[in-house]
């Protein structure tokens, strides 16, 4: 694939993903949440009864679909590559704090774009914080930050996360009585299972093929003046915006696009903490090498480090709701603010502790 073809594919993929995300809202997902990796992992943690917040409990088929979409396409393209061993515990901790940052803002970087496309101006503050966090991460990359090399692993290790996704799907289809399902709130708002699963499969496949990454877009633009991945970011925003405007024109009462700060769906108006939450997310994601969507895709490709990062995200979500760290429409909690500050300190420490130094001989 040459460079201009690669760029075209990324833009096309971004446009398709934006359309799918908006369509999922029309079909039942919460507004501005056609996709949100953080929210959907949080809902999945709730569905598995890892936390008891009744309004956010549902094993989201989109998450299962993304992992399996990436897995199936990487197998087809002979890119399934079981690997791992690159500071797995550090990655789990980073994943944990990525989730803490996301649940302060109420969305992952993917949802941040979708919130912007829905007219939610609070997400602008999130974007500013996210970009600042990426700059912090780049500061460490330039100083020689490294989580060390990965190693080839047995196929069974690489297939573990796709297998977990299959088990979750079986639980959802065959043993729903074992799981928790929200009866109100965002967790109760969902497109039909097969539609969500299909949407996840398509997005997972497209993201595997194009390497779409919300963090990578800004990182590469700053580091290399390379804007390919950023175009994917922009294409998602543009297509979701167009779809939201069309849906709003067709169904004005539903207001899929509503410009402003107030009354935005599943959002709060505390700008400082919106920005700080996404700063933590952007910072930790650069040290991980990718956004939550990218971690799911890499886990599907057989990367067990990314699989552990996803486990970190899941743990973070469970902690956030069990200990009152997650924000709500009413705003952030004091415990959540403390957790974000602790998260930023921990990420700085991880950065400092992993600066590689050249071995000097003689």
């Amino acid at each position: 694939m040459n460079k201009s073809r690669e760029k075209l594919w990324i833009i096309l993929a971004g446009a398709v993903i934006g359309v799918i995300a908006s369509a999922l809202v029309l079909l039942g997902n919460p507004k501005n949440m056609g996709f949100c990796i953080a929210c959907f992992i949080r809902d999945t943690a709730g569905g598995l009864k890892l936390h008891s917040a009744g309004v956010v409990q549902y094993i989201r088929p989109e998450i299962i679909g993304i992992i399996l979409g990436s897995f199936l396409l990487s197998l087809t393209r002979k890119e399934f590559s079981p690997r791992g061993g690159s500071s797995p515990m550090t990655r789990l901790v980073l994943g944990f704090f990525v989730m803490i940052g996301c649940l302060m803002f109420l969305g992952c970087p993917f949802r941040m774009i979708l919130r912007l496309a829905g007219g939610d101006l609070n997400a602008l503050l999130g974007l500013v914080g996210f970009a600042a966090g990426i700059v912090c991460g780049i500061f460490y990359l330039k100083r020689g930050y490294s989580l060390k090399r990965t190693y080839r692993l047995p196929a069974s290790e690489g297939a573990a996360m796709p297998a977990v996704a299959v088990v979750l799907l079986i639980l959802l289809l065959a043993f729903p009585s074992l799981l928790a399902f929200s009866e109100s709130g965002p967790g109760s708002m969902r497109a039909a299972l097969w539609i969500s699963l299909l949407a996840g499969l398509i997005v997972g496949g497209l993201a595997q093929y194009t390497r779409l990454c919300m963090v990578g877009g800004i990182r590469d633009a700053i580091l290399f003046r390379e804007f390919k991945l950023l175009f994917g970011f922009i294409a998602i925003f543009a297509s979701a915006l167009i779809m939201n405007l069309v849906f709003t024109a067709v169904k004005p009462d539903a207001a899929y696009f509503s410009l402003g700060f107030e009354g935005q769906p599943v959002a709060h108006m505390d700008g400082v903490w919106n920005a700080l939450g996404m700063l933590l997310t952007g910072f930790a994601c650069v040290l991980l090498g990718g956004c939550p969507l990218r971690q799911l895709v890499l886990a599907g490709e057989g990367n067990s480090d990314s699989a552990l990062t996803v486990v970190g995200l899941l743990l973070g979500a469970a902690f956030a709701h069990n200990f009152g760290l997650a924000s709500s429409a009413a705003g952030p909690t004091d415990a959540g603010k403390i957790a974000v500050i602790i998260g930023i300190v921990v990420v700085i420490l991880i950065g400092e502790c992993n600066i590689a130094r050249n071995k000097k001989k003689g």
Partner: protein
Amino acid sequence: MIYIATFFSHYGAMHCKKLCDTAGISARMMPVPRALSSSCGTCVRMEADREDLLPRTEEMEQIALETETGYQILFSNF
């Protein structure tokens, strides 16, 4: 000849670029081309007459020769 080296970390690419600069090899860091890998890290694009002139480091994952049709893998440490 144009060679692309991929690495296990961004630091590995930085280190290789420094070694190239010291050895007088024209090199620049850039994102890994999609055709070469599904990973999205940093690679180093080097111009040299022969492969044996290129630096080798522990952090290096692979070296590929850029051809008219794509890439030919010359070395893999994975």
